[in-house]
């Protein structure tokens, strides 16, 4: 039941925070914090499984079960076979915890930055989080789609109301990309349910029921593509990545944190949970294309990152590059690569959130995002600079920090099945330091730029709120990097179950 409570708590807390905002901004802030604390505690309780025997509880399904830790099942719209079906295995739990953790980070980064329509902002923030938690737990396809939309609209509002100079363009681009691809997702979903109905005479949106459907190869490919495009947009992967740099650049800091840290992961989660289990044959056939897109994303986005002058745009492109590893990891569908893909999701969640929080802090202080208007900040903002160095190093994949574990496992696992893909992707090891170190050089080393003259001594270094926020993420990355098994013990049984559904299981 904790799954339901977390989502209810976020929805209700968001509504309350929105109303409280009419009375006082601070009330809204503290109420949101309280909501997240409660949700966080509930989230931690997910680590303790509530199911004794996972298989008996999923009625009327003989599909392989995986290792479910929690399950909530209720009838919702019986006429259409729609249920309120939430289930969480280790993968879901890890991603839900990441969501709630980054929710805190987003809240802390919004604390000072968001001064207009505070209540409404926290309403949107918490509703986005609720949508994401729902996505990671929903196993009824219709319910999944509802959460998919719940996540989208508040995020759109966050960008278009609290964003920067070009926010309307960016928000609209974000909305159109996501909404158009959602339409494909919905159509493919309905078609899948319809086929299941034809074959079995029972109407169901349940993931468990739709597994192992006997699909005509051509039709299977079309439906798989419907899902794939929707998730690829969210991931995002080349060539449908264009919304991301604009959305990130224009979003307020907490928006960027949520967007990079969590929202992108819903795309990856969709690939993992839906594409390959539901369409194993079509996905197997499609693998060469998916891997190619992954490799292109990794290298092309890394090269673009190097060429950016806007610090947020640079980080946005690194996100695309890093998510490319997730794509190839998932389509390699191998125990090591899959584990790597999820570790990469978690590691990237923390490192990109950290980098965006940092970019936000810089913009807040210097009123610019242009790297050529920075420089020499190492001496004037030593704490901020040290934190920046940490995250840049994490992003370039230094062993001992979280991102390395993900990238290394993805490449190692991918190499076992698709050696060429892994070898070409490994070139990112050379390109990543180029953008990461150029970021450090332009922002923090060298002499201060002319634009900074006179400004640099007046800006304040990180205070305790920001140090706490950054420190938490840094600690997270160190723990992920040195003790990844704390996370992977939850992933292994879940992945083993999931793997049976794909090819070569």
């Amino acid at each position, binding site marked *: 039941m904790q799954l339901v409570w977390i989502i209810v708590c976020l929805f209700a807390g968001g509504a309350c925070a929105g109303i409280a905002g009419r009375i006082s901004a601070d009330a809204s802030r503290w109420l949101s914090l309280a909501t997240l604390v409660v949700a966080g505690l509930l989230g931690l309780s997910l680590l303790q499984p509530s199911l004794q025997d996972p298989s008996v509880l999923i009625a009327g399904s003989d599909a392989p079960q995986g290792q479910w830790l929690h399950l909530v099942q209720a009838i919702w719209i019986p006429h259409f076979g729609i249920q309120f079906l939430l289930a969480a295995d280790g993968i879901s739990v890890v991603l839900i915890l990441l969501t709630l953790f980054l929710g805190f980070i987003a809240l802390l980064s919004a604390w000072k930055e968001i001064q207009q329509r505070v209540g409404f902002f926290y309403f949107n923030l918490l509703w986005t989080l609720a949508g994401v938690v729902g996505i990671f737990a929903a196993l009824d396809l219709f319910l999944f789609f509802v959460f998919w939309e719940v996540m989208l609209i508040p995020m759109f509002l966050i960008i278009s109301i609290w964003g920067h100079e070009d926010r309307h363009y960016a928000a609209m681009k974000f909305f159109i990309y996501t909404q158009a691809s959602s339409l494909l997702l919905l159509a493919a979903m309905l078609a899948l349910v319809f086929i299941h109905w034809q074959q079995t005479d029972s109407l169901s949106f349940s993931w468990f029921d739709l597994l192992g459907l006997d699909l005509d190869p051509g039709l299977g490919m079309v439906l798989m593509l419907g899902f794939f495009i929707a998730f690829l947009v969210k991931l995002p992967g080349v060539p449908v990545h*264009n919304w991301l740099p604009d959305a990130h650049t224009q979003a307020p800091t907490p928006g960027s944190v949520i967007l990079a840290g969590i929202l992108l992961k819903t795309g990856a989660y969709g690939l993992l949970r839906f594409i390959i289990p539901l369409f194993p044959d079509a996905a197997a056939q499609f693998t060469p294309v998916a891997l190619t897109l992954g490799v292109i994303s990794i290298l092309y986005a890394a090269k673009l990152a190097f060429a*950016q002058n806007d610090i947020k745009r640079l980080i946005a492109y690194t996100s695309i590059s890093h998510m490319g590893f997730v794509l190839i990891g998932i389509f390699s569908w191998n125990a090591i690569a899959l*584990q790597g893909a999820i570790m990469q999701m978690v590691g990237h969640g923390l490192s990109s959130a950290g980098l965006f929080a940092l970019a936000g802090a810089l913009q807040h202080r210097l009123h610019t995002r242009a790297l050529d208007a920075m420089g*020499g900040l190492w001496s004037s903002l030593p704490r901020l600079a040290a934190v920046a160095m940490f995250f840049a190093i994490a992003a370039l994949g230094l062993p001992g920090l979280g991102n*390395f574990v993900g990238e290394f496992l993805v490449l190692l*696992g991918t*190499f076992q099945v698709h050696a060429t893909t892994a070898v070409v992707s490994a070139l990112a090891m050379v390109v990543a330091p180029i953008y990461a170190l150029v970021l450090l050089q332009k922002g923090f080393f060298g002499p201060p730029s002319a634009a900074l003259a006179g400004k640099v001594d007046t800006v304040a270094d990180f205070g305790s709120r920001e140090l706490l926020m950054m420190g938490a993420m840094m600690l997270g990355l160190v723990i992920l990097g040195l003790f990844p*098994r704390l996370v992977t013990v939850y992933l292994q049984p879940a992945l083993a179950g999931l793997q049976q559904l794909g090819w070569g299981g």
Partner: protein
Amino acid sequence: MLDWLWLVPGLPFLGFLILFAGQGKMPKRWTTLVGVGSVGLAALVTLLIAVEFYGTPEAALTYRQTLWTWMEAGSLKPGFSLYLDGLALSMLFVITGVGFLIHLYASGYMYEDEDFPRFFTYTNLFVAAMVMLVLADNLVLLFLGWEGVGLCSYLLIGFWYRDPENGRCARKAFIVTRIGDTAFAIGLFLLFRELGTLDIQDAMSAATATWPRDSGTATLIAVLLLGGAVGKSAQLPLQTWLPDAMAGPTPVSALIHAATMVTAGVYLIARTHVLFQLSTDAMQLVALVGVLTLLMSGFTALTQTDLKRILAYSTISQIGYMFLALGVGAWSSAIFHLMTHAFFKALLFLTAGSIILSVHHQQDIFKMGGLRKALPVPFATFLVGCLGLTALPPTSGFFSKEQILNAVWSSPTGGQLIWAGAVLGAFITAIYTFRMFFIVFFGEQQTEAHEHKGFKFHVPLIVLAVLAAVGGFFHLPLTSALPHAGHDHVPLGVEVTAIALPMVGVLLAYLLFYRQIPALRQLFETGPLKSLAAFFYSGWAMDWLYDRLLVKPFVALARWNSKDLVDQLPAVVSRGAALFHRLLSLSQNGQLRYYVATMALASLVVMAVAVYTG
């Protein structure tokens, strides 16, 4: 005592954490205590371990300590596990021992620097990572140390961050070595796919059991690992970063870019020697890389004018000898030379640091001159270092280099031609070493010099000088860890030539740079030799080549497409939609006659279609 092994990386890491937490606000005395003390204690623990280690019978000289399991995925299960054998212990001596002396020296050398604490924060992290590298029992953990030292190297080269040029040098070092690291990583992937393990000892025994001699897979993996090694150890074709790495503070050059990190490639190959032994081609390649690198960089060192760059090229050249030794299967000679080189090259760098500090950060040897009287201690220690580098008997360098040259002569992957190259290299080494020596210390004094005194400066120099002088008599516990090459019997004439040529080189340097015989000088300063010297001076134009071949095209491509061409696609869609919208709006102009006309026209078209198709 052996179960204290984890303290050897642990203590410097703790030092790093304390200094990091101190945020540079601790008093300098404490910073020194933590920064130097942590490495000193690590050296002490190493010594205690060594005492126990030497006490046990030779055959049982291995010790494993698992701290925790790092990752677990499929059959991959690397741990934070340490593996101590004679090879690792030999490396620990160098890292903690020489490392401690350099730290002590640095506490004097860097004292006035405003970022004094940051310096030790980085160097302590470096020592921890370097120790992890040599103690790792699996290749993933080794890779952690490998990348960790690379990071510290980057941070310390760019230590004086205000000058963008230092930042460029630091980035170059990191990115160029990363090219090698990528090859290394791919080698790991392949090794894991073929053998299913990344534990070094398991993989080595599985390798001999799985692959026949000269198997293609073994060769490929060995070559990929060699790729990592040439990056880290600044060998052909990835050597270009090391001379620029001299932008860092001089103790860093001594610690990272002479004594420890740059020899990690040598260690890697020695550690995986079983794999290399399986492949004659790979061994041959290692030997060729070694001999070509030692010659190329030797010639370049002849023409340099910056004291630290001369030493940098000489480091590349000496590591070339170590690679050559590995390539001809003289494993323990390579590690022996690694140690003696650490002694005399750390000595040379630290002395160079003292000299440079004394002459107010002047690094051009032609602007020094005659410093013999003003700097007596550096003069003496530099001389010892030069003798070691030249490998004149009975300094430490003599013993290690003699072993290598003899092995090259008699090995199947060596041979007479490669031997001749190596001896020619030794001859050149003598010339450039004593060219530097005579120009710096003799002749007319060009600049004022104030010697920096005190035990922090002098103790490390004197201890290292003693080590460089007598280090050749040390016995490293390598017999159980590395296959014994056996005594190489070479013809007397060969041995005499190898010993005599460096002496001739010293003599030639004496005539050229001390006596300054005009006829000889004329020869080098005019005509074709001069342009050849310019070519050598540029490092054989390899920077130029890479710049044209890789850097410029990449930057140009990035600039050209900085706006992301793919982003233009949706723009086309949106512009198309806007255009269509305008077209359709045009049709709704509110004029009745226009509507009637289009209706009539459309009816005509429909009727015409109906008539012709019906």
